[in-house]
């Protein structure tokens, strides 16, 4: 219960919230770079709704952190240096070569594969959070899952169609999937605090969530006749603050204006 939490329990709550918030925030940031550049106008519009929804989800988590005394949601999202971030490697990877304003060479196949894997993993976690011992997390999970259904349907449709349309699109998707899975080692990990988090019953065990994820993706992979990917061991673990320079440049861009005057109201 919120009113009688021990410092140990609170620490576990914060760890979980930072992971959830940073994941959705970075995922949404990558989506926002795509805005206006999707292969089809109608899809651009639909994709942006998903990006906005996801930033809304990040905001829900950052607001819970704010309520726990961690600082304002805006500064949590924008000012924390890379070492303090808990997002997975997958969401910090750039969309492709090139800066979003100049000549980005973004690959839609990679976007679809990443968004499909990320969204199904998110679904597995959100379902697991519905039984969290921390009521505010439970409530947020229920809220988020209402919008997540559409995200999952959207990316499953794209993933399935591109994997089955032509030989070329299939081979592009297989390659993209490989890229994505290579980075997905920490996606369903809780990092070094895993025991503490699970002991506090904030979320199910990593193994149980992986089971949930497999149950979600198996029908799709069977339908497209592609072997279900095996999530590797993490190369680096974002949950423990291990990140690439891609995250540094993302943080610089996202906070450029905000950072220009921290005391100002924007």
């Amino acid at each position, binding site marked *: 219960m919120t009113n009688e939490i021990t410092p140990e329990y609170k620490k576990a709550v914060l760890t979980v919230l930072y992971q959830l918030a940073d994941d959705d925030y970075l995922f949404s940031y990558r989506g926002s770079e795509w805005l206006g550049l999707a292969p*089809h*106008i*109608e*899809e651009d*519009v*639909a994709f*942006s*709704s998903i990006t906005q929804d996801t930033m809304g989800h990040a905001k829900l988590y950052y607001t819970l952190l704010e309520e726990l005394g961690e600082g304002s949601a805006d500064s949590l999202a924008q000012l924390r240096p890379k070492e303090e971030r808990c997002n997975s490697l997958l969401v910090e990877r750039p969309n492709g070569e090139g800066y979003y304003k100049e000549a980005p060479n973004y690959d839609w196949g990679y976007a679809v594969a990443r968004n499909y894997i990320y969204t199904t993993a998110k679904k597995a976690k959100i379902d697991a959070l519905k039984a969290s011992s921390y009521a505010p997390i439970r409530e947020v999970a229920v809220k988020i899952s209402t919008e997540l259904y*559409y995200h999952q*349907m*959207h990316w499953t*449709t*794209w993933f399935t*169609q591109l994997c089955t349309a032509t030989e070329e699109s299939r081979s592009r998707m297989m390659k993209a999937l490989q890229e994505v899975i290579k980075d997905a080692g920490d996606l369903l990990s809780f990092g070094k605090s895993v025991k503490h988090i699970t002991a506090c019953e904030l979320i199910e065990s990593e193994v149980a969530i992986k089971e949930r994820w497999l149950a979600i993706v198996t029908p799709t992979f069977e339908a497209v006749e592609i072997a279900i990917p095996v999530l590797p061991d993490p190369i680096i673990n974002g949950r423990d603050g291990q990140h690439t320079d891609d995250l540094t440049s993302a943080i610089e861009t996202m906070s450029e204006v905000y950072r220009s005057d921290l005391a100002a109201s924007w």
Partner: protein
Amino acid sequence: MEKQSFYQEFEVFSKRTPTSNFQHQFSLLAPNGEMALVMAQENFMRREPVVDIWVVNRKHLHGLTQVNKQALQRLDNKDYRTTKGYGYLKKKWRHYEQVMLDEKEILSWGGGGKKDDK
């Protein structure tokens, strides 16, 4: 035969509430119905409630040409088809000290007979 195109035209219809009719929204381009469905709501109903969506490939729609729209015209002489042609009953029923069962009255009977209990 025409070359297959990614740009298939789909007409989008949606229902705002469970009791409302489907309403035409707009059209979008998509390669197939599944894709049209996952784009429809966010393209045309981002700011309003929706409870259901239909997408229809335009090649399955049949409409009237401008000339054939003349087939829709008719004379204004069909009172016998509407309540307008039976308005005189009001006076008749008044004579028998009864009220006329007009549209407003009859359609109000849908409330599970509650009105009769009065």
